[in-house]
């Protein structure tokens, strides 16, 4: 029976069995949003070979010497093609905590160390056209951890995700979040500045000592202690040397100005201001310094420091000459960044061909990957998305997402995969209720001990990183449930087990058939199969 379970990676929902990676792909007669100087091309073709874009133009079929051969041809009539979308502020696929909040400076920690390639949200975001994400550390400390820029190579392991060539980065944070801790310096925006200056000064002196030591003659070196390695100061020294860029969580204009002044004094350029909600108040200064701006399109009012946020922020920064992008900061929003770009049109009238760059070319520039990604131009990586309609329209659905010429999401393949997964679930449950049940094995202890306690271990049982608001506990003593519910539970278990044993997928069982619902069904199964602490 185990043979019926396909060997996918991840070995879970939407796992990949065999990737779709044709040698060449030709999309014909589509509306192509190049995010380049060529703007939006009507009735155009896109030709991809060996994972790279070869050409964009008309009648590319005729340029193929030797005919189509094994080229995969996609009829793009009525469809739209954009570059793969890029999220410059993501916390997706970070396993084991986004924040290291015990200290005010944690430059030594690295998001890349906890990259989870099996997070289902990668796949969900591919289904929204996302191809690149800037995985950032959280905002609990003024100087946070090192970032990780990845391509959404769903179906590969964690070593395949990092985007080679992206400049290393680090998360900084200002404002309310970093001064929230009651027992740790800094406690105000004033202290944030002095802390950051102090650490940069130390990093500079540490590096100078290293350089000095390296320049010594061997016998001089032998007579003295070498400077101690310091992963924190080394990381900060890389910023001063221009080898690493700062992505700084920021809200109010004064804190943005402060960090610009610090950077000016220490002679480095800030990579991006993240969120940058009051960036519009100081857009000229950000433009002068040369930092990028990566913001929410229109979030506001959730904190005191964000009461002045306005949705025109992106357009005003863009108009001032700042490289501007819209990001998600959310596993969910990252699935629909295309319509975030539409808000640059709504608020301030950014032209559509420029607005699409807010989620493609501009974040690519901010991550210094624009020579590879961010626009549809010959020589660049074949990261592209096929949409059912104008990508700035709320009616548009993502039909296919390609990363490096590999099809990582396809609407119709997705449907087949879902049917496959439903069968897999049935097979596993049948197995669990027959062999494991008889032998007394197969119990994993249940409750919280599954794969990272997060998902997968007990299929169908709700998984969530945040407590559901619906979960209420009432302290008063009580009867053990209403008679109605007791009866429901009793009936459902008998009926359900009968159906599962006859090979029916519990997911397919509907109310009316067994008088219960899917979730309660799972519940019943695990009571019987020992999903929670032993076989009964």
């Amino acid at each position, binding site marked *: 029976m185990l043979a019926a379970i396909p060997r996918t990676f991840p070995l879970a929902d939407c796992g990949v069995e065999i990737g779709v990676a044709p040698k060449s792909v030709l999309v014909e007669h589509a509306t192509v949003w190049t995010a380049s100087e060529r703007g939006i091309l009507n009735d155009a073709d896109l030709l991809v070979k060996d994972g790279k874009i070869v050409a964009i133009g008309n009648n590319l079929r005729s340029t193929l010497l030797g005919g189509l051969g094994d080229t995969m041809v996609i009829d793009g009539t009525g469809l739209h093609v954009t570059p793969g979308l890029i999220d410059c502020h993501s916390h997706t696929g970070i396993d084991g905590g986004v924040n290291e909040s015990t200290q005010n400076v944690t430059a030594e920690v690295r998001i890349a160390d906890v990259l989870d390639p099996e997070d289902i949200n990668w796949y969900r975001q591919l289904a929204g056209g996302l191809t690149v994400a800037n995985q950032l550390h959280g905002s609990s400390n003024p100087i946070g951890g090192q970032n990780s820029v990845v391509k959404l190579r769903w179906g590969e392991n964690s070593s395949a995700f990092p985007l080679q060539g992206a400049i290393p980065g680090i998360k900084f944070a200002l404002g*309310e979040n970093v001064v929230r801790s009651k027992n740790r310096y800094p406690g105000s925006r004033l202290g944030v500045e002095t802390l950051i200056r102090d650490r940069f000064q130390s990093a500079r002196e540490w590096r100078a000592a290293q350089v000095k030591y390296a320049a010594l003659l061997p016998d001089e070196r032998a007579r003295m202690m070498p400077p101690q390695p310091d992963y924190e100061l080394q990381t900060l020294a890389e910023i001063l040397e221009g080898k690493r860029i700062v992505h700084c969580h920021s809200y109010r204009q004064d804190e943005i100005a402060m960090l610009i002044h610090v950077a000016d004094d220490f002679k480095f350029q800030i990579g991006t201001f993240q969120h940058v909600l009051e960036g519009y108040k100081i857009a000229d200064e950000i433009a002068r310094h040369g930092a990028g701006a990566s913001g929410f399109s229109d979030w506001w009012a959730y904190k005191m420091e964000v009461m002045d946020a306005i949705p025109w922020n992106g357009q005003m920064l863009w108009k001032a000459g700042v490289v501007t992008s819209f990001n998600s900061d959310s596993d969910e929003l990252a699935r629909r960044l295309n319509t975030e770009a539409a808000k640059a049109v709504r608020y301030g009238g950014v032209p559509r061909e420029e607005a699409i760059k807010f989620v493609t070319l501009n974040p690519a520039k901010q991550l210094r990957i624009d020579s590879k990604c961010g626009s549809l131009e010959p020589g660049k990586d074949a990261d592209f998305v096929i949409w059912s309609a104008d990508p700035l329209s709320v009616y548009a659905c993502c039909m296919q997402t390609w990363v490096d010429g590999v099809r990582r999401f396809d609407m119709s393949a997705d449907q087949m995969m879902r049917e496959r997964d439903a069968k897999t679930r049935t097979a596993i449950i049948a197995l669990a209720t027959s062999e494991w049940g008889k032998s007394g094995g197969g119990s994993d202890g249940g409750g919280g001990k599954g794969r990272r306690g997060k998902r997968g271990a007990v299929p169908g049982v709700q998984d969530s990183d945040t407590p559901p608001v619906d979960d209420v506990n009432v302290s008063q003593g009580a009867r053990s449930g209403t008679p109605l519910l007791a009866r429901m539970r009793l009936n459902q278990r008998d009926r359900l087990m009968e159906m599962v044993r006859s090979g029916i997928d519990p997911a397919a069982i509907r109310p009316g058939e067994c008088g219960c619902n899917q979730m309660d069904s799972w519940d019943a199964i695990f009571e019987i199969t020992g999903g929670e602490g032993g076989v009964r």
Partner: protein
Amino acid sequence: MMNNRKSWFVASVVVTITVNATARQSSEIPAPKQQTQMVLRHVDVRPCTPGAKPIPNGWVVFDKGCIVALGAEPIGLGVASANAMEIDAPGHVLTPGLWASATTLGLIETAQVEATDDTSEFGDFHPEIKASTATNPDSDLPPVARNAGILMAHVFPVSGVVGGHASAMRLDGWTIMDRTVNAEAGMIVHWPMMEPVQSRWQSKSFDEQRKDRDKAIAAIDRFFDAAEAYLRARAADPGGAKDARYESLRGVIEKREPVLLDANWPGQIEASVLWAIRRGYRPVVVGGLGAPEMIPLLKANGVPVIVRGINRMPLRESDGVSAVFEVPAKLANAGLNFSIASGDEPAHERSLPSQCGRAVGHGLDVNQALECVTRVPAELAGVGAHYGTVAPGMSATLVLWSGDPFEITTVVRRAWVDGREVDLNDRQTRMHNKYLEKELQRAPADPVIDAPVPVFPASVTKDPHP
């Protein structure tokens, strides 16, 4: 923003609005009662009455706060009075004012500043509280929502198990008296999770969770048992002592007021709806992401659903990537009565139209989608007789859009609540205008003003790193 000219062309809308916004930096002023009859001409009218088709080239007359008549162009002679103010708006769309359902608009200003938060009350059972009591008329949030065409709100308190009365509110008016349409527009019941949860935040075993759940359900039952007993006792002895908590459940027990069952998961929906039916109440499911799995139950009992947001993750990993986007279409195909709420923070209610659009992109009929944020929510808030459609005799609560109401790029041009024109400025337009002024003053950049201020420590600037 009344205009004195008799004929008023849309071509001048942008100019008029901009001038007004800059001229008036104060907060938004509620307009007086409608004085002049209004006629909207050559507009794409979306009546939102059951089964009604859009009128692509239509007209609407409203007077004294109510809609007088509507139809397809040309308008008949004498339908509008001679001194009516006319707005000719070809290419524009006219809809009823949208509803923000299951929202906390007005109850909270800044989510993380506790002093601004009136969404929650102590204890598990506080049915006596009413949302209308503290919907701050001068909150900065509703005017922002109005700029997305949201003119009405079904406001929910969010705490407790039996959580209090939701209220139907206008998002325009000087006082809570002006704004309240129906103070007791449903009793909120937060139904417990039926299935145990396995997650890193949940330390309790499955058995403990089940025991908690059963206790919670028993407590709900006990509470309503007591309320019913109290009402019987009061009927028998009207002179007896009054209990505000039990008294506030009178509407629910007498079936005048629905129970708003907060339930997303199929198990919650099933158990809560069966509970309400057994007790003889009128259930409305709020949340409802799992409703597609409970269609026979909901349909057989005519239970409406408020789908609280589709910009959210699927309930389970095994659900399709678009599972939530498809919920409205699935409910529609099954013939269920449902509305759509944003499910977003009150500051972000403006995502509502685009969420409807996304539901349309995933199979929902476009006209039905509009009814889901106009007529249906008005009915579920108990004020469907006056709000939610463009029909003769209904309140002239209307939005004039620059185009497709669901597209993000569309702008609200004008809006009326009970015939009173709404000031479409808000805190955000004020900040925008303020800093446009800075752009004007500072262009081109002034090297003196923009130079970095001297900073500590001085040695840093003198001794740059080599």
